[in-house]
Each structure stands twice: as structure tokens, then as C-alpha cells.
């Protein structure tokens, strides 16, 4: 599944974007399946906005986003749901867990949507990221770092061609980052999927094919 961005410019940032200030905004870009893309984005340059536009949550922009030749803006709700359930996964910056549900319930909500990952595999992932003992704790009682790991595992519980990540390791120490990176790399390789990771600072978590400055 190929992503093409054409002259993309979010309406709130339109005036700030000048001809050569960004590698992404107001440019024409294409990302190919399996590519690892890093987007370095200092505060206020629209990092989260870009992730939300790619995920179809925002429509206040000029230009076009194409998923596999299909205009994202032209998809109806059901088509978008189909895209999100089977081809596109995301780790939100603000995580977006169900705070009143347990870790396990949060993961089950995602897992049962496609039912492509076994429960045993989910437990194994929890084990690898060191939060298996938090399995039955309510999401709101977890630390932010723990919630971040739950959100990462949740993003891996469906088939996907692309994984979007918005500051996915901001509250993790380097040991836990390594564990998470290795899990993500493993699952996305198994899915033959591409990665788009947006963060504030330059990093080398993955072997990036493209590094862009927002």
C-alpha cells in the first residue's frame, strides 16, 4: 500500500509554511510499502496534525492524501474503518486508552476487531514489554510509561501495511525503548509493513529509509 502526499498544508499552519521550510508540507511525496520513515518535527510544526491527517482524523487541510491511489478525503466512514482495521495502525501521542477498562480489556477491544492475533501472543507481548503483571489493572491506574507500552502493543494486534507512531517512546527509558523497538520491528517485518515515526528529536531507533524534517 503506497502513500502519496500532494501539496499538503494544514489550514491552521498555512501561513507559517513557506516554500522551503519543510520537507513534507506543500511537497509531493510518496512512501512505499515496507519503508521506514522518520519525521523530525520540532514543537509547533504540526507533527501530531500530520499523523492525524494521515490517519484520517482531520480534514482541515489543503492538498491531497492518497492511500493506494484512493483519496483519503473521499472515503466514507465504512471505508475508513476498513482501512484502519486492516491496513493502518497507529500509536497516538496521547495514547487514547479506555481509562475505565483494564489493560487486558483495552487490548481485547482491538484484538477481537480482526481476531488475527492469538491471546497467548498478546500475553507474550505484555511479558516482553514488562507489563504482564499490569494485565488486570485499570488503564487509569497505570503510569504514563506503562500506558504507552499498552498503546504500542494495542497497535500491533491487527494486520497492517503501515504503522503510524507519534512520539511513541516519550516516557520510556532506554531499556524499555529497546524492547519496544525490537517488538515493533519484529511485528512490522512479519506484516511486511512500513513505519512512519514522528518525534521531536533525531533518533536511530529503526533503520530509516527516509528522514524528513517537518
Amino acid at each position, binding site marked *: 500500500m503506497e502513500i502519496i502526499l500532494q501539496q499538503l498544508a494544514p489550514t491552521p499552519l498555512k501561513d507559517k509554511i513557506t516554500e522551503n521550510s519543510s520537507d513534507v508540507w506543500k511537497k509531493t511525496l510518496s512512501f512505499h510499502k515496507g519503508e521506514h520513515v522518520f519525521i523530525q518535527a520540532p514543537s509547533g510544526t504540526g507533527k501530531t496534525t500530520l499523523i492525524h491527517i494521515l*490517519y484520517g*482524523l482531520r480534514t482541515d487541510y489543503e492538498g491531497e492524501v492518497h492511500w493506494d491511489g484512493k483519496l483519503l478525503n473521499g472515503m466514507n*466512514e*465504512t471505508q475508513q*474503518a*476498513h*482501512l*484502519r*482495521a*486492516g491496513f493502518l495502525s*497507529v500509536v497516538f501521542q496521547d495514547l*487514547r486508552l*479506555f481509562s475505565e477498562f483494564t489493560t487486558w480489556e483495552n487490548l481485547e*477491544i*482491538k484484538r477481537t*476487531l480482526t481476531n488475527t492475533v492469538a491471546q497467548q501472543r498478546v500475553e507474550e507481548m505484555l511479558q516482553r514489554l514488562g507489563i504482564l503483571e499490569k494485565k488486570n489493572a485499570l488503564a487509569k491506574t497505570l503510569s504514563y510509561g506503562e500506558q504507552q507500552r499498552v498503546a504500542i502493543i*494495542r497497535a500491533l494486534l*491487527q494486520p497492517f501495511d503501515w504503522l503510524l507512531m507519534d512520539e511513541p517512546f516519550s516516557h520510556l527509558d532506554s531499556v524499555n525503548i529497546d524492547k519496544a523497538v525490537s517488538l515493533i520491528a519484529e511485528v512490522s517485518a512479519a506484516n511486511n509493513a512500513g513505519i512512519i515515526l514522528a518525534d521531536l528529536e533525531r533518533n536511530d531507533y529503526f533503520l530509516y529509509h527516509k528522514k524528513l524534517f517537518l
Partner: protein
Amino acid sequence: MAWLSLCAGTTLLLLSVMIWWNFQELLYGKNENDSLGNSFIILSKSVTNDNMGRPDLTVFSQSEIIALSNAPQVQDVGVLTSNRFPAYIALNANMDFSSEIFLEAVPDRFIDKKPLEWNWQQGNREIPIILSREFLNLYNYGFALSQGLPQLSQSSIQALAFDLVLGSPELRETYSARVVGFSDRITSVLVPQSFIEFANEKYGRNAAAFPSRLILNVKDPSNTHFVQFLESKNYATNAEQLRWNKVRAVVEVIASATGLLAILLMGISVLVFVLFIELTIARAQQSLSLLLQLGYDPGYLRKFMMQRFIPLMLAAIVVAVIFAAIAQWLASIFIVRMNLQLPALPGFPVWIAVFLSIVLLVLQIRISVIKAMKSI
């Protein structure tokens, strides 16, 4: 709260449909309910000083009967056939009690409450009689008290066996007779039509005469056109009957008003339920929008939400149906005391109302859910 209001609204709607339907049953139904609904009135020509002593002027000709059946509001016209032979009635056990009487017959469809024993075939020696309740009252409160005779209840009269002596002295026969019922509708001594035809043929002294009294089935006797028609022809009838019909008209208006009120209440309770749906979805808005973000299909979520509301709605309707059924059952018991009959179960208009309520509420829930989900 929303559920209770929906329950109350549906109950009221069903009850009002039931009230309306029960009135229809009482007024126009096939059940043999006494003196309700389509009014029956007895019509005769006024006896005036001019036509006194000339019986041919107080009878109805064939053309007059046809004119009457085409008169406004008139639905059916029946002839009261009277005896054309002498008749005596005597108490079987006590030959001292005897009286000359007259007999009349009307077609069975005009009889208010047809008793089971109400039939006669040639060869039967026992004649069933329906007596006007007015006659019994005249006897009990007028005659018996002044003559020192015992007052008689309906059941004791029905237990008495009478001898009915028919015909002139040269051809006289005795039948046994029994009072099998009482009528509020026809002030007469009624025997089955088949019997009076047979007896007129056998014992009758003169040729078939035109009837002097008619029974009319009239939709609304208080209708002014009908009243004017009667006046123009100088026909006499019972004014009390006309007055009762005004009461009936008022009752019908009240029944319709109840229906309107119920529809209004149903509307309000549907509104409350819709608000409840919107509130529930608004409360769940964050979760729903997160589920959408995780890739859940909006159609699936709509279905999921509808599946939460539909059982609530169905439960409200089931409770309302139970209330309606209980009310109908109580009404059917209560109404028996007034010598009327109602079915013990709600009739088909109530079920149609149930069905329509379910269809409309499902549609309304669907619309509300779709609308509320759109705003997420």
C-alpha cells in the same frame, strides 16, 4: 426514567386504543349487547282525534316501510307482527290467575339479548317468551303492591310455567309457555317469529294486516334530519331513547379525546426516550469515537447501540401489553355486572397498535442513533 415514561406512554396509548375498541365492540360489535350502540327504536303512528277508531290509518303501508328504510340514519327496518287470534295466559299451577294477552314477534336480529332457548319449530308445545322489563316493573311496583300480590323477581318469573291458550272457542289449543328473557328494547310480549306466523295461519281470524308498529335500527336517533323526518310523517317514538343518544354522543367524544390525549402522551414519552438515547450516546461519545478511531465500523457501532435500546423498548411495550391485558380482563369482569359482554383479551386493534408502536419505535431509535453517532 426514560424507560418508565416510555412504558407509561405506551400503556396509555394501548389503553386508549382499548377504550376506543371496547366502545366500538359495545356500540357496533357482533356481541349481543343490550340496548347499546346502534339504537333500536319502536315506531308507530300517533293516534290523533282524526284517526281514532280507524285502524287502517295507523298502520304502515309497504311504501311507507320502504320510505322509512331509506330515511336518514336508518339502517334496518323490522316489522312487529302481532297476533290475529285471541290469546289467554294462565298460571299452570293456579287456574285462577289468567289474563288475555297479546303477542308480538320481531325478526331475531332486532332482539337485544337472544336467550339460548329462543327458537320454535312446528310441533313444539313449549313457547319461549321474552317479556318487556317495563311490564315486569309495572306489575311489581304498580299492580302487585296495590292488589296485595307477591312481587316477583326475574328469575322467579322465569321459573313459572304458564299455559298459553290460543284460538277462538271452536278451535282452541293449549301450549305451555315460559318466560326465557327480558327486553329493554321492545315494550311487548315477544314470541318467536316462526311461531306467530304459524299461529296466525292456524288460529287467525282475519287476513294478514299491515303492521302498526315497526322496529328501526338507527345509527343516531338524535340526528336532526332523522328527527325532522319523523315529525314530518307524524310518527311517534320513545323520546327517552333520543335523549340517551345525546349521552352516547358525549361518551364517543370523550373516548376520542382520550385517544388524542394518549397520542400526545405517547409523543412526549417517545421524545423522552429519544433524549435518553441521545444522552446515553453523548455520555459514551468518547468511547464511541475511540472505537471508531481503532477501526470499528460505524455501522457495527450503530447496531451495537441499537441493540442496547431495542430490548429496553420491547420491555416497555411488553409491560404495557400486560397492563392492557389486565385492564381488559378487569373490564370484561366488571362489564358483566352491567349485563354487557366484552372479550377477556385485548382485540386486534390493540395488537395493531402494539405492532405499529414497535415498528415506529425501532425506526425512531434507528434515526436517533444514526443522528447521535453523526455528531461524534
